[in-house]
């Protein structure tokens, strides 16, 4: 498990990192927590000639609330999200997602930005980002731009991040009063990645009618997707068991479900429905609590 030879760069700020990225182009990879890239390099599936480590760039990690959103630095570790008091009080579902990523070692080193930029199809964060309608803040030579989560995941390990850009921040909108959110996951028994993961973020009005629904599904396909059919079947309705069941039936629609050792297309599609139902049911319970 020895990677091919590479040069290591430790820029001191984003500008320097962008300069290196511009100079080294395709030969360089950004290193965040290293829990996806380094294993691929050890297996020699990835052989970048240069690593640009963001670990020594100040200001890229930390969690702030700006009134409308939680602003999470890209280099914030999963554990920092899991244990953050701001997260627990304002958007606890993020702590719930973080707490089921990998194992403690992965959570202590792996970062939210690294995960979202890597876009592993079985990562946990994408489902939550979709459900919550997050925005990715990318910085490039011409400055910063925001990309909505629905434009972010383009395919298998492919995102809207441009070649000369670095993902620097994730903005996750806070949920209004009367909301509940939950993440339910079927973990891979070996890797703990999501075979299927479903996140639901729901807002109920005072009459108990669903006014807003966000449902993201990860794991089953080549990329995480928004379960639009499920959302449409929830909004405007009182969310009793039958309504939830009917809505969840659409959870695999639009997912390009991939068969592998963990399941056939049939089984994984079924899991999408089961875990969407579980996430919605729990989100409704939390919204009412």
């Amino acid at each position, binding site marked *: 498990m*020895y990677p091919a030879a590479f040069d290591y760069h430790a820029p001191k700020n984003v500008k320097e990192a962008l300069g290196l990225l511009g100079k080294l182009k395709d030969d360089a990879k950004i290193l965040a927590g290293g829990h996806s890239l380094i294993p691929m390099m050890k297996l020699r599936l990835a052989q970048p000639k240069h690593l640009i480590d963001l670990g020594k760039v100040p200001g890229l990690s930390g969690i702030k609330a700006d009134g409308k959103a939680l602003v999470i630095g890209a280099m914030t570790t999963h554990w920092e999200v899991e244990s953050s008091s701001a997260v627990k009080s304002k958007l606890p579902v993020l702590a719930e997602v973080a707490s089921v990523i990998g194992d403690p070692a992965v959570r202590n080193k792996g970062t939210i930005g690294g995960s979202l930029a890597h876009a592993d199809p079985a990562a946990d964060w994408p489902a939550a980002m979709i459900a919550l309608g997050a925005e990715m803040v990318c910085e490039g030579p011409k400055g910063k731009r925001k990309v909505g989560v629905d434009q972010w995941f383009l395919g298998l390990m492919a995102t809207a991040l441009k070649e000369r850009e670095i993902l620097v921040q994730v903005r996750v909108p806070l949920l209004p009063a009367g909301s509940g959110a939950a993440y339910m996951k*079927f973990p891979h028994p*070996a*890797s703990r990645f999501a075979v299927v993961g479903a996140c639901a973020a729901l807002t109920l009005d005072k009459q108990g009618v669903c006014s807003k629904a966000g449902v993201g599904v990860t794991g089953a396909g080549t990329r995480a997707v928004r379960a639009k059919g499920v959302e449409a079947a929830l909004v405007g309705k009182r969310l009793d068991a039958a309504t939830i069941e009917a809505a969840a039936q659409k959870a695999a629609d639009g997912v390009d479900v991939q068969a592998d050792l*963990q*399941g056939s297309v049939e*089984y994984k599609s079924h899991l999408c429905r089961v875990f969407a139902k579980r996430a919605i049911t729990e989100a409704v319970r939390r919204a009412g609590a």
Partner: protein
Amino acid sequence: MATVAGERLFGKAIKRREDPRFITGRGQYVDDVKLPGMTYAAFVRSQHAHAKIRRIDASAALKHPGVVAVFTGKDMTGVNSLPCGWDLRKEKNIPGVVQDLAMVPHMPLMSDAARHVGDPVAVVIADSQAAAVDAADKVKVDWEPLPSVTATDKAARAGAPQIHTSAPGNVAFKWEIGDRSATDAAFKGAAVTVKKRILNQRLVANAMEPRACIARFDTATGELTLWVTSQNPHVHRLLMCAFVLGIPEHKVRVIAPDVGGGFGSKIFLYNEEVVCSWASRQLKRPVRWTATRREAYLTDAHGRDHVTDAELALGKDGKILGLRVKTTANLGAYLSTFAPAVPTFLYGTLLNGVYTIGAIHCEVTGVFTNTTAVDAYRGAGRPEACYVLERIVEAGARALGMDVAELRKKNFIPRFSGAYQTLVAVSYDSGDYAAAFDKLLQMLDYKKFRAEQAASRKQGRLLGIGFSTYIEACSIAPSKLVGALGAGAGLYESAKVRVHPTGGVTVYTGSHSHGQGHETTFAQLVADELQIPIEQVDIVHGDTGAIPFGMGTYGSRSASVGGTAILMSLNKIKEKGRRIAAHLLEASPNDIEYVKGQFQVKGVPSKAVPFGAVSLTAYVPHKYPDNLEPGLEETSFYDPSNFCFPFGAHACVVEVDRDTGTVKILRYVAVDDVGKVINPMIVDGMVHGGIAQGVGQALWEGAVYDEGSGQLVTGSMMDYALPKADMLPLYETDRTVTPTPVNPLGIKGAGETGTIAATPTVVNAVVDALAPLGIDHIEAMPLTSERVWKAIQAAKAKR
């Protein structure tokens, strides 16, 4: 842990003396050994499951900076095939042989063809690990890919790709045990018969420490020292010197220092160890290699991999009348060191279980496939036998409509000590099978559980309970007996006890600890026998330069066989001490007894000399008996008269998630009888670990090959699901104690019990949970969520 002299330690749960070193990172493993001038080996391995080698071009690799040499099989002239240490041939009068074992060649580096993914074809040796690995990528092998076969039940089919010219149809051997005609008759007279296909999937051993070796050839002395991750350094030395390299054994020292687990996989002689040893002699520099985890998955001997058709014949009263078993055992691409023994004499001979059975017949076909070689993995044959028996017994009970616990009770062999002759060659030593089972039922509160289960079923919950009773043959083994069965080795154990002048004791044991805790348990034994503080006792193992010729550790043999060898040496020490003390006390040796750490005139504690004074006298023999050699050091070899047969009963309560098929273990209860126990904490640990591995096989683990390409799909810990702490329940364990009459310690062996019992226990529980849906069997393991969900869907569709 400080102990008081004279305090009896046998049976005491003292903390492991080796653990402070391990848990503070101060263990010395093979990879920790650093030598001046050492070089690093990287192996070039086949990416194909089956391919001819047309040509190997190492020119680019040789030009890579830091590369010292590149060797292929053609360079290794005069080097022989890796030996298989178990013979199954009619001309050798090995019982049960139907078709002779095909002794196929297994060269350290393959030159003609590669027969599984990971087969080594060249080695690159360089000044650094990085250079070796980079250069290995530059070795160009011109392959001619061939069709491959990996599936056990397809290897011997007509038209399957031929793997070895010397094994037509890919059949390695055919073997049988038991009485065919008596079994046929039993089935004719049966009230109920059941037949099931039972698959026991392939497993990867996954020792925590990957295999590693360092070979150093000393040009000054002509000696070769090999540090290697071995469970049995003398076996490694013998096989490598006598069979493969043809170099003198006395010029080779094999050291297996701290070794991080083996589960059987470090018993065997492997290609890499031979290649590094040979290369060190060529290069006159030390050559080291440490497996990557990927290499461990591809090259450590795998376990299990049986396809079995089992049939059970029952009387109306639930008595087991007959058992018929037909097994195909996948041996992989080559014969690993003890491979032929595992699916034969370690399998067929255990099919009698703990039951009185009318008749048994078992036939086994060993097949070659384009997969990693299969050999002993924790339990080795016995888990496969227990799984078949306990699954088919449950299926029989269900077919008969009898409670699964009730049916077992009706068939237990009654309590005995001395000998119970089974229908499958072996004779059990002692047993009280009903007692262990009764204790288990009590711990479970079985009737109460069935009532709860009935209530929960009304709510739609899928709750199930599963049992297994098991027997295993361990404390391996009587040399004459295993020799008659085809073993190439004797299976005694050795121990040298050296008492130092000042009273300290060093034990040089032929057993090898790679997790078992010998430094604690053996020291407990010595401290007890010599009545000295345990701090005065050290245990040395794993170095052929220090220990007497020993057979190492596997088959739950260390305490019973290795421990008895130590006891024999201690008795000799005490006997010699008695003669020295008698001289000092001016008494007859017959009047001397050993009490509380001193030799005294019988009944006269005032006329005594302490152990330390006797040991000093032995080395400063001024006042000393005539005709007695100075020194206090004794060596013994113990060869057991029989195997020992631990047994027990396990139960498990599970709940199946109807929506996903996921199995959750709610309770796991185990009652084991391993004979007498030196250190209950260590035995508990062995039981816990064994259960974890057995549960792992039942629910998650499995080496999967892609049928088309022959690639190992589960080739890493990201894909191969090992049990993790949070996937397992808190175990409830207890013991019954039925000492063995075979050895003076009364110890049977504890290392493999959990692995043997747990797998059928869990699968039986899942089947019980699904019984209301009309399910009475699931053919394949592991019981992944999808497999269980599909069984539920199929059952629903039938209704």
